[in-house]
């Protein structure tokens, strides 16, 4: 039935006059090139077969932006570069595939390369006041670039801002614009005891952080804690986002600090896990650093851009330390005058800062011609409604447009555009996804994607599951054709009853 509808649409489009057809696209600026070419063959490409093929190989292109949650303001002529520097990774084998596609279509090798600009969202022309990113391929096939010299001036009075990444093919064809998350502007790190109420300055368990070390506050000497080839290193070039988690055992000892359940406090045992590779450091006690001393008696919440040290748990004052690019253990020496302090070296004082990772994933594999990818729709949450014969799935997120359709696996769902933050779709019947529904006694899980009219696929991280339900809700609609069903149902209930109530029979 679905194929029938598809056929109708194709023939319908073929007969429609060009004025009406072009009207379809004029509403959105990014479709202007489509209108110019009047190329309807683009629309015919999105079929169940082609989507199935995409799902099989997943030639995705991902844009991943890593950045800090807070940025320190630059006063007057000073330039406090964002630290750690915002960086961009291009991942997924779709990039290579796209490159080959473009090459095959007659474009020169050089114009298939990529470059980008990163700047603040207040900047008017990205090509003048932004940082130009040139990507280099890493050993893991990902392309990497980072914006080392971005800063925010005190003339910008905003409390929050975003970074914008503009990506281009070397030929000048725009790939798209990608946003960072919101970044909070601060004047300097808080010196006071941090209040839990100041949630965006606290660091919660399970959030992502970056750690860096700066000798004598010299920018050039900055080294970032990173993971390379499964080992921790102090890199001058790249940084890694770590998930910081509280280790539970500590709660028993510090039970009076129940607030530690969610926020990292000094004196807590934490573990740092690399968000990429899953390599972790052993459990360590986080200590506040004051004038190169680790304070052993401080229990206040850890705040953004605080200096801290990491003492290996159960060790005799061994601390996480860097020695050039290596990560080692350092033996702190006890303070003769103060028993609750130990003396550290430069390499064992770290600055902690919360970070964000934003990932945009799409695939141009079904889109014939180079198009603008952005605005990339992002799904933040789902909501199911209805039930019975019709169930509706509401998608909450950003950058939705009327050109998008929700796809459950290789099945297009009837989609209604409500606003740029809400799409509504009818959940397709499971039988359409896989044969006759009655035989579906195993759960079926399909990925959710958004597909634009021109075939551009935006993959989501969500998947949707149909789980067979064996228990009939005992509905009263006993029609003639249902009697056979209810007979076997009653049989099952009988069996179950006798199985579960065997003791009743034993009594007599």
């Amino acid at each position, binding site marked *: 039935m679905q194929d029938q509808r598809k056929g109708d649409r194709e023939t319908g489009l073929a007969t429609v006059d060009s004025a009406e057809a072009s009207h379809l696209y004029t509403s959105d600026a990014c479709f202007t090139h489509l209108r110019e070419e009047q190329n309807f063959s683009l629309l015919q490409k999105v079929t169940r077969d082609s989507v199935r093929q995409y799902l099989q190989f997943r030639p995705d292109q991902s844009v991943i932006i890593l950045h800090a949650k807070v940025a320190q303001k630059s006063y007057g002529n000073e330039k406090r570069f964002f630290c750690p520097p915002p960086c961009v990774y291009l991942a997924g084998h779709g990039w290579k595939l796209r490159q080959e596609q473009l090459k095959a279509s007659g474009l020169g090798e050089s114009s298939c390369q990529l470059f980008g600009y990163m700047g603040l969202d207040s900047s008017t022309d990205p090509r003048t006041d932004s940082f130009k990113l040139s990507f280099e391929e890493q050993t893991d096939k990902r392309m990497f670039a980072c914006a080392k010299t971005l800063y925010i001036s005190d003339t910008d009075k905003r409390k929050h801002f975003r970074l914008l990444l503009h990506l281009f093919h070397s030929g000048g064809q725009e790939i798209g614009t990608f946003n960072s998350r919101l970044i909070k502007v601060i004047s300097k790190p808080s010196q006071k005891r941090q209040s839990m109420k100041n949630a965006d300055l606290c660091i919660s368990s399970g959030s992502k952080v970056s750690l860096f070390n700066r000798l004598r506050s010299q920018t050039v000497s900055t080294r970032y804690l990173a993971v390379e080839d499964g080992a921790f290193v102090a890199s001058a070039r790249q940084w890694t986002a770590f998930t910081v988690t509280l280790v539970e055992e500590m709660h028993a000892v510090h039970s009076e600090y129940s607030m530690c359940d969610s926020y990292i406090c000094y004196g807590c045992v934490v573990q740092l896990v690399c968000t990429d590779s899953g390599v972790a*450091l052993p459990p360590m006690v986080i200590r506040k650093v004051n004038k190169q001393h680790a304070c052993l008696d401080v229990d206040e919440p850890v705040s953004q851009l605080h200096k801290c040290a990491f003492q290996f748990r159960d060790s005799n004052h061994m601390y996480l330390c860097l020695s050039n690019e290596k990560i080692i253990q350092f033996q702190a020496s006890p303070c003769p005058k103060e028993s609750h302090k130990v003396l550290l070296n430069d390499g064992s004082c770290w600055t902690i800062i919360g970070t964000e990772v934003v990932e945009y994933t799409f695939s141009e594999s079904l889109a014939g011609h180079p198009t603008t990818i952005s605005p990339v729709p992002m799904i933040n949450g789902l909501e199911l409604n209805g039930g019975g014969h019709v169930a509706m799935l509401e998608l909450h997120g950003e950058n939705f447009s009327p050109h998008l359709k929700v796809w459950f696996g290789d099945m297009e769902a009837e989609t209604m555009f409500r606003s740029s933050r809400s799409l509504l779709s009818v959940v397709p019947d499971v039988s359409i996804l896989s044969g006759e529904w*009655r035989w579906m006694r195993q759960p079926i899980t399909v990925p959710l994607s958004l597909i634009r009219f021109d075939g551009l696929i935006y993959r989501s991280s969500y998947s949707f599951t149909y789980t067979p339900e064996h228990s009939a809700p005992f509905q009263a609609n006993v029609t003639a054709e249902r009697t056979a069903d209810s007979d076997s149902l009653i049989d099952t209930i009988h069996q179950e009853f006798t199985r579960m109530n065997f003791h009743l029979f034993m009594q007599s």
Partner: protein
Amino acid sequence: MDTVLDPFTGLDSFSSPYFDDDDFFTDHSSRDHLDTDDFLDEDVDFLTSQIQEYYKDSRIAQDGDYCDVGNFSFSSSSSTFSYGCADSTSELSPHRDGLLLKRRRRMRSETEMQQLRQAANVRERRRMQSINDAFEGLRSHIPTLPYEKRLSKVDTLRLAIGYINFLAELVQSDMPIRNPHSDTLNQPKKVIICHRGTRSPSPNDPDYGLPPLAGHSLSWTDEKQLKDQNIIRTAKVWTPEDPRKLHLKSSINNIENEPPFNCIS
């Protein structure tokens, strides 16, 4: 119940209405006939079950369908059961004597008494038949084990109670029959989609005989969230070396970090 264990005390308390009722021995009652019958039914029914229970347990497996109070009264050696016989007053408890004396005033002939007795027996038999028919009807609705003998009345009632409870729970909980302790309770609100378009099952169907599906419940997962949690759960620990102990190389231990983590999603 005490009365089940001791049917004699049960009789003492429950048989009294018969003796209070002046019209018991006459068909030409001034009262409404049906009322009297109903009144009797309740008590006789109760007695019957008690007597049956008692005899079933202590004596022989009595066939419930054909034993009624009338039979018992004549076969029993104990005159306590023979409430129908007006002459056996000597063994009744003294407090009832006054009532019986009152009844004696209305003297009846021997044939008259026999007619009444027969009529009462017929009524009683008819009544028992209707009860037994109803039990048979109830019995046919109760699931039994394949090798089970025909259920006795008391077991029929007991299993009926259990079965009704079972069904009520099934309806209320709306749980899958096969695995009542499944983890489907995790999702707060279950949205179930029923199939559209139905057809009768045929023996060729791969699931013929299995209970039909009520539909499919819908749910979703965020793979990114799962991946993040999984990375934390399966983290490999890398321990930096202590330069003073050069013989100890930094190593990766494959440790499953399960309980010590406080995962906040």
